Structures are given as C-alpha cells and as structure tokens.
C-alpha cells in the first residue's frame, strides 16, 4: 500500500513536470559523488524552468 501511494505521488508530480528529487540525489550519489547536488528548492525551480522553456511546452490539444 505504501509503495502504491509513493508511486501515485511520483506519477502525480511527473504529470506536472517534476521528477523525483530522491532519485536525482540517488543518481548523483551513485554516479557523480564529487558533484554538489542541487537543493530541493533549486531542483524544483530547475525543472519548472525546463518544463516551460524552449524545449518544453509539449502538451496536446
């Protein structure tokens, strides 16, 4: 049940263009331990800018 709710939360956030911050931290820890990860707020703003920037705007009629 807990797993299901976590999935649901992740899906809801990704629908509005916010991928999982936890996964991002995990990725940096595994692959690039030398890099300073963005804070949760920085990550949120970074993704927000990406969704509505020149690459984003993908949405159907």
């Amino acid at each position, binding site marked *: 049940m807990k797993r299901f709710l976590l*999935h649901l939360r992740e899906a809801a*956030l*990704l629908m509005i263009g916010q991928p999982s911050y936890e996964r991002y*931290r995990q990725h940096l820890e595994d692959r690039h331990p030398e890099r300073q990860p963005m804070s949760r707020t920085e990550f949120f*703003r970074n*993704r927000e800018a990406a969704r509505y*920037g020149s690459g984003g705007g*993908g*949405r159907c009629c």
Partner: protein
Amino acid sequence: MALIGLVAILVVTVSRGEPINALWIVVAASCTFLVAYRYYAMFIAYRVMKLDPARPTPAVYRADGLDYMATDYRVLFGHHFAAIAGAGPLVGPVLAAQMGYLPGTLWILAGVVLAGAVQDFMILFISMRRDGKSLGELVRLEMGAVAGTVALVGTFMIMVIILAVLALIVVRALAESPWGMFTVAATVPLAIAMGIYTRWIRPGRIGEVSIFGMIGLILAIVYGRDVAASEVWGPIFTFTPVQLCWILIGYGAIASILPVWLLLAPRDYLSTFLKIGAILALAIGIVIMAPPLRMPALTQFIDGGGPVWSGSLFPFLFITIACGAVSGFHALIASGTTPKLIASEADAPFIGYGGMLTEAFVAIMALIGASILDPGIYFAMNSPAAILGKDPASAAAAVTAMGFPVSPQTLIQTARDVGEATIISRTGGAPTLAVAMAEIFSHVLGGPGMKAFWYHFAILFEALFILTAVDAGTRAGRFMLQDLIGLAMPSFRSSSALLPGMIATGLCVAAWGFFLYQGVTDPLGGVNTLWPVFGISNQMLAAMALMLGTVVLFRMKQHRFAWVTLVPTAWLLICTISAGALKLFSPDPAVSFIAHGLKFSRAAANGQILAPAKSMAEMNSIVFNDWVDAGLCALFLIVVITLLLFTIRTCLAAWRTPRPSAHEIVPDMVSAP
C-alpha cells in the same frame, strides 16, 4: 475476450430503433483495445520494430537525474497520458455525434488501433532510438534538411490553428455566462497566490498548494452562483463573444511573457489534476449510471448538410474526430520528454500504444456523453444561431423541423437546471459535454439539485486546461517561430534576448488571435469553419509522422512490414487531401471556402448584401476570411504533398541500398555525462 468484444460491437452496430445502453459501447471499446494491445501492439513491437529489452535507452546511457532518468513505466504512463489528453478527444466526438453515435464509435475504434496508437508508438520508438530527439530533428535526420524545415513550418501553422480553435471553444462556453466567467476569472488570482506560495513561502510544496487551490476552485464554483445572480457583479462578468475574444487575446499575450512560476505553472497543477480527476470520475459515473443512448445510431446528416459542421461522412467525419482516433499532435509529445524517461524498450508498447488507447477511451466517453442527451437538446445547443434564431420557441421549432422533436419548455428547463440563461446555440462542444457531465455526475452524487454545480464544474475543468494549453502553446509557438526565423536570421534564435522573444510572442498571438476573431464574428458560429481546418491540419501532421515511420521502416530494411504505417498513412492522405480539396474546390459554398468567397464577392460587386452580413464592410471581411482560410488549406496541402514526395524518394533510396541505413544513435556513440 475477443468473443465478448465481437458480440458487443455487433450489438452496437446492428441495434436499430431501440435505445441501446452506453455500456455496450464501453464493453466493445475495452475488448477491442485489450485484444489490439495484446496482439497488434506486440506484433509491432517485436516483429516490426524488433525492440530489444536489453538495449540501453537514452534514460539509461545519458542519465543525468533531470531530463534523462529511467522512470517506472506506470509513473511514466501517467506523465505521457496527462500530456496527450486534452480538449481534442472531448470536443471532436461531441461534434461528430451529429451523424449519430455509430460512425464516430467505429472510427474511434478502428482509427486508434490501426492509425493513432501506431503513430504514437512508432514516433516514441524512433525518438527513443535517437537520443530522444524531437519530431523536427527526426525528420531532418532521416529525410534531410528541407523536409525538416517544411515539417517545422507545418507544425507551427497547426499550432496556430489549435490555439485559435481552443480559444474559440472557451469563448463559446463563457460568453453570456457570468457564473462560468467568474469561476474561470477567479483562477487567475488563485493561481497567482499559489505561485507566490511555491516561490517564496514554502518553495516546491506542490501537494499542499494544489489542495489549497482545489478548495479555492470549489469555493469559486459555489459562490459563482451568487455572483452571477448579484445585480452589481452579474453584469460585470457578462461578456459578449467579441469582448471575450479580445480579453483572451490580451490574456494570451500577457500570460505568455509573465514568469512561468507566477501563473502558468500553478494553474498547470490545478488543470492537470482536475483533468485526470474529472476523466476518472466520468468513467466511473458512466459505469454506475449505465445510461441509455438517446441519439440515433445514424442521423440523416451523414450525407452532409448537418447544422453542426458541414460536409458528408467521408471525408469529414474522419477529420472531425482527430484526437481520440489519430492525432498528429501526439507525435510532438512522443518525441518530447517521454522518450528521455523511458527505462526499457520493453516499456514502449505500454506507454506509446497503451497511452493512445486510453485517450481513445476518453473520446468514447465524450461520444457517449453527447449521445445520452436528448437529441433535441443536442441540436439546439450545437446549431448556429443563424438557423435557430434567438428565443426558445424559434429554436425548438427549427430543431423539431430537423426531425428531433423538442419543446421550448424543455430548452428553458434544461438551461434553468444548469444555471444558465440559455443553452441555445452554445456551440463548440464544451457546453454540450458539460450538460452531459452534469447529467452523469448529478445522477451519482447530489441529485438534480447539483446539476448547476456540476455543469459549472465541467465548464471550469474544460476552460482551465484549455487556457493552460493556450498559454503554454503560445510559448511553444514562440520558440518554434524563433527557430524558423532563426534559419534566415541566426541572431533571432537566442531564447534569452528580449526583443526577438517579444516579437515572436506578438506574431504568435496575432496569428491565432486573427483566426479566433474570425471564428467569433463568424455568423455560423466559427466552430463550423475552424474545426475542419484544425482537423485537416492535425491529421496531416499525423500523416507526416506516419510517413517518417515508413521511411524508418524502409531504412531498417523492414519494408515487408511497411504496411503497418503505409495503410494508415494512405487513409489519412486520402481523407485529408480530399477534405482539403473539397474545402478549396467544391462547388458547394457551405463546404468550400473559394466557392463561398466567390459567391460573396460577386454579390458584393453587384452591391448586394447577403445574409448573414449586414453591411458592405462585413461582406468584404467574409470574402477576405474565405481567402485566408483557402490559402491556409492550400498551404497544408502543399506541405503534406512535399513531404510525401520526400518520403517516396527516401524510401526508394533506402530500398535500393543493400544494408540498413537508419540513423539510429547507439549508446557507444555517446559518453555518459
């Protein structure tokens, strides 16, 4: 399963004379989709595309935790579906119901299985094998630079038409409706408050801010009734269609240059969650209520001459239902963020093919919604005012004369039930769907007393995500335009420079604003003219995407399976080229822009004024609009025929080459960042 599906389809197809239950259509659709997914999608995946679950996807070999990130397939399905589902699958089927529920149902079922879902899946596959590149880049890569530019121009034009048509639907839904207007207007300060909250007060807390927002929305609907009834506030929120048109144009221009966090992003949260919630609720509601279909299976309008949109079943039904059966716009989404997030090639059928099947299901629900209404009410809501006249008596008489008996009292009572002044000639599909949703939701929750609430809830739900699409689409159109102008003038491309951005935004708003104004002032209601142009353009984009798919199959040396994309391409080309040609060259002024323009310009030359124009200036503007629309149709035809020639040339070249020549990007070519 196949057997149940077959029985259900047979029941839907052969039932005549007696009303059938909507659940038959639901069962027929579910079984068709499951069978198609299990066999056809898997056939395409493993025989045609030769998906390799072991092959790393861009999300794996390029992983950066941001744009490229392997994502659980269920989570990604939600993301993809939220991006493809919009107003299209809701409005098209409602308009198509003028021919009865049967043609629309059959086209949605066949179209999605053989064309729509194939297109989405194919483009997702092509993009996934090429670093998640966008549609324009993919066409450039596989078919050359000229074809890429032609595709980009076509895409931009389609974007403009989509924005105009969406905005027109909002205008038609909110005009002369203070309750609806107030609730939609209330979302602007609400979204700004949410934006400030996520920016400064508690950054990034989307969950809690969305809950506040939803509460605000419900309060806006509840108190909207009092605002509309108030003698002071009611008139302030009552607008004519032309006033609303200018408000929307101004809004679009301002909203698309404001910082995204202030208005667009928070409203996006509300509209996305509301959209998904409302779609789920509608599905549950239809199953619980199990309403009978009151629309006949076929109406006399299949030969053309319908009041909602003109033209006969072939080819116009196949462009009226675009989204839901096959939508070219999805090619932009399937080559957008989704291919960068997909964790394994084995997930692609579920997301690409399955996502589109789900959207077709939404279209089926919209069709059911329109068909459970009294046909008299349906035609009274969707016919142009020029046919119906202004008051319930004339409208009821006109609709009864069409063969759908309805009394003036029914029209007045329906309007009163949903809390509106009138329901006559509320074209555009959205109000019709809202009446149907009010019917279904109030049956499940709240009883008839809640109808007005649910009607305005449905209007808000549609208006909200359309406004978000207008805003986001204007931004996307601006970047496309900057890219296009940048081809000739490289300095224009910079996305940070202020002036090019402002100019491109202005041009983009002016372009869709022009078509919106034309649609709003069109005496036939605008939807009548604009929706077919939108349908033609959207299906042409789909044809272009499927042509790209064909080229890739030839390049992969899989041409013996090329029928998978060739059959739908051919069908779409036949439909769109014949529809486009009819729109240009048909002798019938109700169908053809040129015939209509000539008729009016001849009359104008003789000093005559033809209805619905009231002055010579209106005559001239009708002629001008006809020529612009005709030019646009011609442009779409040129774009699609050019791409067809490029496709044939590339396929022949690939066929003669003994080795596979697809430009796939293999993981070894890229080093992980």
